[in-house]
């Protein structure tokens, strides 16, 4: 371990540590602009210069580029180094527009910080300032090139780290320009990170532009709940409105970055139609009245039909606090549920996936980055867990081999092998893989060689397109690979793993069956919308309509909210905080960011500041976290749980669900999975085997299909249209080409699609991505198979 002296202090650091980091370990922060821990040294800005007085190198050199070595004597305060650093600042400020008062970076700008620290205050450069013409980079990133100090971070992130090419450096010398060949929407779903990574106001957040000064916002550490990865974020609120989400560093989870869905999906919390006040039969009412009505309704149904006539539904996006409270409440009352999943198959798949992953050693994003062989089975990373794609890319950049078994035409910012298998073929391939080491070579050329030289394997496995027996095959397959293999499960929701662990046998489908049989008369829906992504809208509609009582507790203006007899608004993660268990079993907590309330309109006509009112609080801030509402309900019906606050929930839960609670927040749970009763599941016959019909596979995409972000207007500009993916050959036989518009008839409605073709799509499969979900509102039932007679050219 090299020992060196920095400013008179001796430190020993691991080999390979850069001098800048060694200094930081001593509490000496050397100024820097281009160096970023995720991107490594660039040596471009030259601001981190220090004096090497003795040792293997001498002179003024860049501390970000030089590795600490034995015997180095470094001075960060040597006059030569200090005056050179001042000179660098002078150079960088030569062309800077000095427009800090109208710059959104102001107040958290690294350039401001280092400029002030350097004492630079006199302008000696006599020339005219360089100016650039800005581009429109789309809805997320605001460019202001005149503020750019050419640290190259943006290009290094966008092209090298993330692997997209449409944004980069143009021109040369002092006219070097960071942008696109022409104005246009940035193609990368990670483009928002440019905002975080740019140390100046050259690239800032467009949706929150001019909304607040940094020192006026309310900020708190939070979590992203737009997929199962649980990326860490910092959320800013201003005037009761969530204005910005930024990546928050967590070395165990997301590192420095997040995806654009996570960054711009927050706007559901500001939705103009968001339920803000309790309502009974659509009429706004007071809290006490709504609760009283709910209690009366529950008591009436219980009196008439018993507690089993009340079904309880929640979802994978509910917080752990809500899930636990709900589970305890159901036990206490004897209500049916809670159901966290749509149907039996989904439940079993989720439990099985959790079990398979937990028993093989579960992998998170860090393990993916370190892997040298990555096999993706039934997952489309960019669509289902966007940041995973960046982690895979980092492994690939270090030389990892990547292969995918999935019928969708997967796109990743890297080179990989894919075989469009699913169903029987997938099962067969996995079986072969489980039997013989090189079994996958046939479908994934290069597999065997990669396997032979691999030391750490990660199999990424998702439950959406893979069926139950394939999931199990995959488990066997991974056992065969032995100790060096781990499973990275991808779930649908932010709290799916907890939902799997807390689930009993109830699912929404089983409750719906009981509604039809007349056994269930009332539903309590807690942060759940059964209409989201449903294939059986007609049936669902009828079931809900037949209920005597529907109580909905939610913060989304969802479809079921519109049909609620009693609506009780709940707080979002931003107002209430909450705990979530991510895909690798990590328990994480979000803090509340602000009190909430109806956002103020900002129209610069005198009502920018909160109006003076004499009410107790701002309008619309009354929402409570769903678990609080549930406790109150329980109390009122005489089934108190003896819980007062969050701490109590955790105390109780620790005893009742030890597998979930033996960890401190931030750690991984020790649940081994279990309780999978697959016998109950009968596998469906493949109906397309004999016919001309294609089987339908419903999928989601990055910006369309995830429940919360569906309600975020910030993402509207990048949402894709509805797409139908055909096998290339099949499509061309039918005269269809990429980009063609078609109608697909489903029941009595026709849904428009844009045609996509790929040789990877199996010939008997039709993959439908509903895109903007609105188009599906009229489809009563999504067909399981579709024949060519139902498809026509638009």
């Amino acid at each position, binding site marked *: 371990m090299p020992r060196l002296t920095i400013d008179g202090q001796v430190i020993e650091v691991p080999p390979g540590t850069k001098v800048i980091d060694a200094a930081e370990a001593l509490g000496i922060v050397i100024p820097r602009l281009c160096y970023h821990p995720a991107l490594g040294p660039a*040596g*471009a*800005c*030259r*601001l981190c*210069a220090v004096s090497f007085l003795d040792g293997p190198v001498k002179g*003024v050199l860049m501390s970000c*580029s030089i590795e600490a070595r034995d015997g180095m004597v470094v001075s960060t305060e040597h006059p030569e180094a200090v005056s*050179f650093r001042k*000179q*660098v600042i002078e*150079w*960088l400020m*030569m*062309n800077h527009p000095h427009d800090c008062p109208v710059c959104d970076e102001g107040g958290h700008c690294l350039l401001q910080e280092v400029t002030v620290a350097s004492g630079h205050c006199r302008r*000696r*450069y*006599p*020339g005219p300032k360089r100016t650039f013409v800005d581009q429109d980079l789309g809805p997320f990133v605001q460019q202001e090139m005149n503020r750019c*100090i*050419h640290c*190259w971070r943006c290009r290094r992130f966008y092209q090298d780290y993330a692997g997209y090419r449409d944004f980069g*450096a143009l*021109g*040369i*010398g*002092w*006219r*070097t320009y960071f942008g696109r060949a022409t104005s246009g929407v940035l193609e990368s779903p990670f483009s928002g990170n440019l905002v975080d990574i740019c140390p100046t106001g050259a690239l800032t957040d467009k949706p929150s532009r001019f909304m607040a000064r940094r020192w006026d916002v309310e900020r708190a550490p939070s979590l992203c709940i737009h997929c199962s990865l649980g990326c860490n974020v910092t959320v800013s609120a201003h005037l009761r409105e969530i204005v910005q989400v930024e990546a928050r560093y967590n070395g165990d989870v997301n590192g420095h970055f997040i995806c654009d869905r996570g960054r711009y999906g927050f706007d559901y919390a500001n939705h103009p139609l968001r339920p803000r006040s309790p309502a009974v039969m659509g009429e706004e009412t007071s809290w006490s009245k709504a609760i009283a009505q709910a209690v009366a309704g529950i008591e009436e149904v219980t009196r008439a039909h018993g507690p089993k006539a009340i079904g309880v539904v929640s979802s994978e996006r509910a917080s752990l606090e809500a899930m636990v409270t709900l589970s305890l409440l159901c036990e206490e009352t004897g209500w049916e549920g809670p159901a966290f999943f749509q149907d039996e198959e989904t439940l079993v798949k989720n439990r099985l996936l959790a079990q398979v992953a937990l028993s093989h050693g579960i992998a998170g994003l860090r393990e993916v980055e370190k892997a040298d062989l990555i096999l993706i089975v039934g997952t489309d990373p960019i669509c289902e867990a966007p940041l995973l794609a960046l982690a895979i890319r980092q492994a690939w950049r270090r030389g990892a081999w990547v292969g995918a078994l999935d019928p969708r035409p997967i796109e990743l910012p890297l080179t990989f092998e894919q075989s469009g298998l699913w169903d029987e073929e997938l099962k067969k391939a996995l079986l072969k893989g489980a039997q013989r080491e090189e079994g996958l070579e046939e479908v994934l050329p290069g597999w065997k060689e990669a396997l032979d030289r691999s030391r750490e394997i990660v199999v990424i496995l998702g439950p959406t397109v893979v069926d139950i027996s394939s999931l199990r095959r995959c488990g066997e397959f991974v056992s065969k690979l032995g100790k060096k293999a781990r499973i990275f499960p991808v779930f649908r929701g932010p709290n799916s793993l907890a939902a799997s662990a807390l689930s009993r046998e109830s699912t929404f489908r089983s409750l719906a069956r009981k509604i039809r049989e007349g056994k269930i008369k009332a539903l309590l829906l807690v942060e759940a919308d059964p209409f989201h992504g449903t294939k059986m809208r007609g049936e669902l509609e009828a079931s809900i309509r037949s209920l005597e009582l529907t109580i909905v507790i939610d913060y989304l203006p969802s479809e079921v909210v519109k049909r609620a007899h009693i609506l009780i608004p709940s707080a979002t993660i931003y107002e209430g905080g909450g705990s979530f268990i991510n895909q690798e079993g990590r328990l994480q907590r979000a803090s509340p960011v602000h009190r909430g309330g109806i956002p103020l309109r900002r129209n610069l006509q005198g009502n920018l500041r909160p109006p003076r009112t004499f009410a107790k609080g701002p309008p619309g801030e009354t929402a409570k976290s769903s678990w609080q509402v549930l406790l109150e309900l329980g109390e009122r019906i005489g089934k108190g749980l003896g819980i007062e606050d969050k701490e109590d929930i955790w105390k109780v839960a620790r005893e009742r669900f030890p597998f979930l609670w033996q960890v401190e927040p931030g750690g991984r749970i020790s649940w081994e999975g279990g309780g999978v009763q697959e016998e109950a599941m009968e596998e469906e016959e493949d109906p397309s085997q004999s016919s001309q019909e294609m089987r339908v596979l419903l999928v989601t995409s990055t910006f369309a299909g995830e429940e919360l972000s569906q309600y975020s207007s910030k993402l509207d500009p990048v949402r894709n249209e509805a797409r139908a993916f055909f096998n290339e050959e099949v499509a061309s036989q039918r005269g269809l080409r990429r980009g063609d518009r078609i109608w697909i008839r489903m029941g009595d409605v026709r849904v428009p699609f844009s045609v996509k073709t790929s040789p990877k799509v199996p010939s008997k499969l039709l993959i439908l991505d509903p895109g903007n979900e609105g188009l599906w509102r009229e489809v009563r039932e999504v067909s399981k198979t579709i024949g060519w007679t139902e498809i026509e050219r638009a």
Partner: protein
Amino acid sequence: MVLLRNRKPGRIATLEEYKASGGYKALERALRELSPGDVCAMVLESGLQGRGGAGFPAGRKWMGIAPDAPKPRYLIANADEMEPGTFKDRVLLHADPHQVLEGMLIAGYAVGASQGIIFVRPAYGRIAEILEREVELARRANLVGPNILSSGFSMDIKVHRSGGRYICGEGTAQINAIMGLRPHPRETPPRTTEKGLWSLPTLLHNVETLACVPHIIANGPEWFKGLSRSPSGSGTKLYCVSGAVSRPGCYELPMGTPLREIIYQHGGGLRQGRHLKACLPGGASTRFLSPEELDVEMDFEGLRRIGNRLGTGAVIVLDDRTCMVKATLNLIRFFSRESCGWCTPCREGLNFARELLERLEEGSASFDYPEILRETARGLCNAYCPLAPGAAQPLESLLDLFAEEVMDHIKKGGCPMKQPGQQRG
């Protein structure tokens, strides 16, 4: 004359002519009689130093590619030649392209390269065409391609046309450019001999360096050393003489020929009635040299001794009517325009210097300019690659040698050399 022995007015030496002058004998000898190690040893012994500007010993560079280093390996012949005042590579390639090809093949054999690339400046489009044609002829003669002269050694040669920027001449930037990336230099280590093109071992040389190789193999290292006039040098050197001399041109002379001789004897001295004011001894990235230093031996060591550099050996002569501020401004304009934009000192600092020089020349300068310029020049030396430190050389020597002239510009409100009524420009 060694390198230019086949030089003819208006056309190249053909393959036959080259062979007739003993060409490709050295290659044959190397392939038949010498091991790659022997070839390396001979080049090391010959004392051959890189002619691209830095003067790094070629043999030491070759030894940097270990026999067990990964394959394939690459060899790049640098014919980017954008250093102001430098045109020796053009003359050399127009005179005798096969000499360079033979040098590449021998070097390739010595380091185990299987692919050679000639990186040609776009202004030299004609040269690129000639090279492509001659490589094809050599291929037909089994001198390039698989199993060369039935020796079992194979090496192909391709011509790569540069996008055309000065920085593309810098070795690591050139490698990036060939890979289709932006031509940014890269910090060493790792050296390009370890991780060069596509992260594989790559030997990169100026074409003049490579042209020396066949002669070393054919005549032996001692002979090559003996060609030099100075004990510290070896071989001959293509000196380019330009500027205020009466016979500008490219002259092949023994390494270490005194500068005075190069200017007055070969370059024909200054034009009628003019006197030498200063000269740049090795292209734009060297310090101005004063008339008192004219007796310097023009080799790497000789110039190092007087705090200067041989660079490319391109002597740019400035006479007594030249404004040194303007001459420096001209150079700094070039460097500022050609900065790759990667690092702050070069991208911003050069432009700062340019603005100040511009104002000095125009007459709107203030008295603190020389000090700011000096600070700037010092700061340029902390840049990422040698371009900016190179640019600092003339700037710093302007302030050292011509402080009075600079001060005059400030005091007199503009360039004192400008004739009354003369146009600004």
